[in-house]
């Protein structure tokens, strides 16, 4: 029982770190793409070009994968196949958190679809439709991930 609880806590800590890294990754990629496409002459775009945001993002992916491997190597054999563990990792509160996060993301996407066209109309971007799609996607994913993290862990 003690071993299972410790393994469960380790797995949950890793999941939390992975979600935070994923949010950071999506936000970094998204802002990088939006800024460099819609506002190529801005100071922010200059900053991204100077600091190679995509390289940073690629390193983050590598770090997440490495951390995942290390965490999984330490887990006991058949950890995720254990019915008690599987049940506690996907309990009703987790499912409700996911459903609420999905609802928030849906509203955020609707709001974004209403506001973003007006903002992008002033950016004089040659890729307005592409930018609108990207912004909507970024807002949806980020809202889902942040909402889920808040509901599940706070």
């Amino acid at each position, binding site marked *: 029982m003690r071993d*299972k609880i410790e393994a469960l806590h380790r797995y949950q800590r890793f999941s939390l770190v992975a979600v935070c890294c994923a949010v950071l990754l999506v936000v970094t990629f998204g802002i990088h793409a939006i800024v460099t496409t819609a506002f190529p002459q801005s100071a922010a775009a200059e900053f991204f070009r100077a600091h190679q945001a995509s390289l940073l993002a690629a390193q983050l992916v590598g770090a997440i994968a490495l951390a995942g491997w290390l965490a999984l190597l330490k887990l006991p054999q058949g950890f995720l196949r254990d019915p008690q563990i599987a049940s506690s990792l996907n309990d009703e509160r987790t499912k409700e958190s996911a459903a609420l996060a999905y609802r928030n993301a849906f509203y955020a996407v609707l709001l974004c679809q209403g506001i973003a066209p007006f903002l992008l109309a002033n950016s004089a971007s040659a890729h307005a439709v592409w930018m609108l799609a990207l912004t909507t996607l970024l807002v949806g994913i980020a809202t889902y991930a942040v909402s889920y993290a808040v509901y599940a862990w706070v």
Partner: protein
Amino acid sequence: MRGSSRFDAAQLKNAVRQHRSARQMTQAELGLMIGVSRKTINTIENGVFVPSTILALKLASAFDVPVEELFSLAE
């Protein structure tokens, strides 16, 4: 849990913490026993999350008490 369920949570009293403490169990042990996370037990005890009937029955079964002894409506 949140939104409309927050009102429900205020209406529900529970004695999960008392029963768990009496048996000297941790939240994690109880969670694993009935197949939920430690956080779920914590939020039930604090009145943040209203469990389903199935989960309430599992808790009652784990403590071997009637479900009415664990959960009741606030006056």
